[in-house]
């Protein structure tokens, strides 16, 4: 269908495919999407024109091979706006744990023939290689975030990114604090809102899958976790988790590492 509708592409890099599901899991509203945009590339759904010029590209996944670098540069050239979605695209993802380790050693222990597989030394966020117009954190991002951003961008309105922590979502929902009342080590105070405070709602501490909030006091929360009985390694594991290489969490874990080493 040749139309003058804005063109949308969905690109996948190294990921679990879970962020694309923010679209594929829309249910019946998915059928309304082609009314808003012309979907020219979305391999998992069918349309397959990766090199066409588009108005908006949604990019899932991290950059982890030499070929990925060329591909993301191509995507950038073809896109008026590039939106990176999810922990992999915005911070390298869980697989960026490999950035803290000896990646070569890991490859050797996983594959009998590692030299046949070309990979970079790190798992990178999209923004390390090209300019990104909007980042949406979350592992996974949800439909509300993605559709909200698309709506804003298509209407020519600047999206207003979330800045608060999960604590604010608990307050909005009237949830009782799991850390104060149950002594659960909860990452909510340092984690970006947007998930709907799912873990505190389920009676467990937040585990930080939406990545760092804008202003985080990692020092203070680490001390609190230790008072709750976590040892230094266990505190480190809380930061070095899903969004381990997002700036705020990475700095926090390196600070802790310095403490424990010294």
């Amino acid at each position, binding site marked *: 269908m040749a139309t003058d509708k804005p063109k949308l592409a969905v690109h996948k890099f190294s990921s679990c495919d879970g962020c694309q599901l923010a679209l594929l899991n829309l249910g*019946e509203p998915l059928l309304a999407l082609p009314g808003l945009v012309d979907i020219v590339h979305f391999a998992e759904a*069918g349309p397959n024109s990766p090199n066409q010029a588009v108005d908006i590209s949604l990019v899932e996944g991290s950059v982890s091979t030499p070929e990925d670098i060329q591909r993301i540069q191509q995507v950038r050239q073809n896109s008026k706006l590039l939106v990176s979605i999810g922990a992999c695209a915005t911070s390298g993802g869980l697989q960026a744990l490999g950035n803290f380790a000896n990646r070569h050693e890991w490859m050797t222990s996983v594959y009998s023939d590692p030299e046949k597989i070309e990979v970079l030394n790190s798992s990178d966020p999209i923004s390390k290689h090209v300019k990104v117009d909007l980042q949406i954190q979350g592992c996974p991002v949800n439909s509300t975030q993605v559709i909200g951003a698309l709506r804003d961008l298509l209407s020519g309105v600047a999206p207003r990114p979330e800045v608060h922590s999960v604590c604010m979502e608990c307050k909005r929902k009237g949830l009782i604090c799991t850390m104060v009342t149950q002594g659960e080590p909860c990452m909510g105070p340092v984690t970006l809102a947007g998930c709907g405070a799912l873990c505190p709602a389920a009676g467990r501490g937040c585990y930080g899958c939406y990545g760092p909030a804008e202003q985080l006091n990692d020092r203070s929360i680490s001390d609190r976790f230790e008072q709750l009985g976590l040892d230094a390694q266990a505190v480190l594991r809380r930061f070095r988790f899903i969004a381990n290489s997002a700036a705020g969490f990475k700095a926090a874990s390196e600070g802790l590492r310095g403490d424990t080493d010294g």
Partner: protein
Amino acid sequence: MAEHRDIHINVPVLTRVEGEGALELDIVGGEIERLNLRIFEPPRLFEKFVEGYERNQVIDMVARICGICPVAYQMSAVQAFERLSGFTPDPWVQRMRRVMYCGEWLQSHALHVHLLAAPDFLGFESAIAMAADYPDAVRRGLQLQTLGNDLIAMFGGRSVHPVGIRLGGFYRAPDGSAVEMMLQRLQAALPEAEALIGWTAGLSFPDDDQSFISVALSDPDEYAIGQGRLISGQGLDIDICYFDSHFKEIQSPHSTALHCELEERAYLTGPLARLNLNFHQLPPEVRRLMEGCGISFPSHNMFHSIVARAIELYFAIFEAIRLLQDYQTPAQPYREVEAVEGNAFGCTEAPRGILWHRYDVDDAGIVRYARIVPPTSQNQGRIEEDIALSLQKFGLDQTDEKLRLRAEQVIRNYDPCISCATHFLKLNVNRG
């Protein structure tokens, strides 16, 4: 006899599969000379990440291997840790985990049948294109998919990387009122799911029976989902901890995934394999729906796997209703599971087939080593074998475009999940 062409078909990106894969096919002098299903999803080395993490953290980490079947990963992991500790979950927990797993089968099968596979059978580029001519069918598929997602979210807060499963049970039990509303929606969906079986059975299938081995879990008491022994149609019947004695993983030169073989042969895992081995354990109400539709199980025609998914989709709803009736909120949704040092084994039936995990855990409950064998790597050998046989039967003198479409359709019959299939440890790792 037509003159033989030399054909090179290269499908750089397979569409409507999860993750990134490619197919290379060379036909020289009327014979298939080279056939590679290339999986080039960059390796994420998941098994290395989980080293040094707590058991409950690992349950949340392995979900990230696959956005389409995170529940399966969480269930295989939690089963492994609980078995190691000699822990038997409470009957309420066992029932509710099965319901949650039914939610994943429901959403994954609905997604695959309608959005990924049906466009092949009906000749469309995508489900969105198909929706113009088949609006009711596509709408039904999306409604069923949403129902499955909501069933997962009832236990896990969200359907992608849900946050509900923990050692010993669930973090929180769903409220009775939520269960009541869910039951009504499940009841209302049953006729839709029944219609779906008829709709898939009425599709036009190539006549393409092949000889292959089916492998699935088997549970004496029910149609196996979350636990069981590993069986094959050829007499294999083992506890999951002996997987390594019978199944071997090998790295293929053209892929970042490892192939897995049973006694040096390719085999099938997934919905069709499950129906081939366990059809008799489906409730009579479910089996009855297959009467008179012209397809019966066991079947060795892989194109019937879309019907197998439709049957399992119906069964998932039927089973969820059965288990949620008379729902009562438990006093405690979990019990603590003591940390025990040793080798933990877990295996469950992911929507796409058996998902086997091994974890070596220390006495503080920290994972020190992991190995994960997902369904797609197990099916990879069978997919390649099938493409070769199917294309020969289809006729290698068909046009390149027709050969390409047929090969892609064969691949999608397996619903490969390529994101899952790229993080494996090499064969023969010796551990003390």
